[in-house]
């Protein structure tokens, strides 16, 4: 007959109690985990918008469309989603030809985990994927107006199609870089990663400012400040600058506070309209007004998806 002291019995009972409580805790955690994981699961990829202006591609002398505008369209999908985007269409503009790929060429893709085959940046249960989109226009030389793209049809490698994707607004404008007005002598331009960009031009002629505009500027109102001389860009009409004077334009792009807006891409090239001494009006384009998010955090993506109503 084995005698067991009461002390040992109590100890053993306590161990069983710990085991029992532990099993209950594990079961509760498992239920919560599965619940959270299924809540966080996306039913379909969520495309991020971008508000971008790009010079419209022109054909070269031989008529080849070798000058293409490139965009990046970003989307968030479940980390285990192995499909890739392989084609894109803009149904509003039949004259447009477009191609899309998720595999990088010439460093066009910014994130790539080398140890996995699926492209994109892994963030918790999600993956942020960059699709390089090349857009070209047939007979671009005949077009003299801005083209605005807001919706796209996106094709995935498994045959799935995502209809009516809201891409934000992409504006293709006739490339005016070749015939820049000759009223300015470029002095300096400076940009920094904190969103501040400065351009200074020396004037070769007397000019009078008319306005600064871009159809996308209203999208940026809350986080973009542009000053021309010392004035806000909305308040420059009638400002006069004389020959040999300096025109300084400064812009500050603040990271948007809104959890949704801060995830999007921005790159605008507003037009400064002015008159020369003879009263002819011209356009000067302001560059380097862009913002693009690079690092992502899991919570930030969850907040974004909630704001978009996808979770």
């Amino acid at each position, binding site marked *: 007959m084995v005698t067991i002291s009461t002390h040992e019995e109590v100890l053993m009972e306590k161990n069983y109690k710990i085991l029992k409580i532990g099993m209950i805790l*594990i079961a509760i955690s498992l239920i919560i985990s599965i619940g959270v994981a299924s809540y966080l699961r996306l039913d379909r990829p969520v495309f991020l918008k971008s508000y971008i202006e790009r010079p419209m591609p022109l054909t070269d002398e031989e008529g080849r469309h070798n000058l293409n505008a490139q965009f990046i369209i970003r989307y968030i999908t479940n980390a285990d989603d*192995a499909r890739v985007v392989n084609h894109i269409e803009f149904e509003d503009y039949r004259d447009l030809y477009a191609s899309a790929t998720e595999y990088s060429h010439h460093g066009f893709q910014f994130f790539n985990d080398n140890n996995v085959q699926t492209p994109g940046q892994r963030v918790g249960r999600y993956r942020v994927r960059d699709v390089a989109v090349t857009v070209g226009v047939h007979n671009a030389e005949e077009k003299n107006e801005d083209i605005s793209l807001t919706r796209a049809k996106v094709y995935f490698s498994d045959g799935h199609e995502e209809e009516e994707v809201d891409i934000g607004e992409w504006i293709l404008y006739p490339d005016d870089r070749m015939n820049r007005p000759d009223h300015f002598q470029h002095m300096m331009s400076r940009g920094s990663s904190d969103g501040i960009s400065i351009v200074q031009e020396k004037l070769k002629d007397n000019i009078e400012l008319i306005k600064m505009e871009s159809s996308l500027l209203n999208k940026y109102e809350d986080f973009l400040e542009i000053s021309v001389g010392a004035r806000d860009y909305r308040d420059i009409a009638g400002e006069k600058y004389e020959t040999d004077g300096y025109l300084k334009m400064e812009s500050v792009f603040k990271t948007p506070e809104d959890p949704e807006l801060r995830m999007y891409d921005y790159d605008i090239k507003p037009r400064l309209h002015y008159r020369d001494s003879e009263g002819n009006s011209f356009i000067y384009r302001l560059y380097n007004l862009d913002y693009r998010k690079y690092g992502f955090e899991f919570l930030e993506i969850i907040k974004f998806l909630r704001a978009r109503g996808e979770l």
Partner: protein
Amino acid sequence: MEKGYKSIFWGVFLASFSITLGPTRLGPPFIGWMIVLSGINHLKEVHDNLPLREAGKYNKFLVFFSLLGSLVDFMGNRALITPLILSYYPIITSVFELLMVFKIIEGSIEYFRFIQEEKLSLEFEIEQRTYTVLQIIGIIVFLVSSTIQNEFFMTLTAVFLIVVRIYVMVSMRKLRKIVMEE
């Protein structure tokens, strides 16, 4: 009996550490758990008791689910399997592992009681409790980290679970030493 503890020690070792050669793993976990089963059987030969029989039963579940897990791994990338529930299958093996080790230690405690070594049985009741608490924490932390899928957190959890396995191995080594001295 020392042969039994030795087998359990090496079984746990094999189940924890394996060499990965390309897509195949040399010594997948279920082989380790099968060696543990032979260890449990050795122990039963010397001192058959209910906890050890139960440990054997849990071990069979463990072998089955690890084998299933290895098959799933072998068939292809686990990331491609969409059913959510499958990503939690390591929880099942960890729970059976917890129950099995709990019962192996309990069986040993009963043996010490049988041979009237109360001091030893007391010592291993404390070891049993420490192990139980550590393994439960490990499983819950694993659940949390695999839900948020934070790589740093997941690595930390894996290291923690390996430390718990080492704790079991040290316990088995200790038991083997004790029965050798008996």
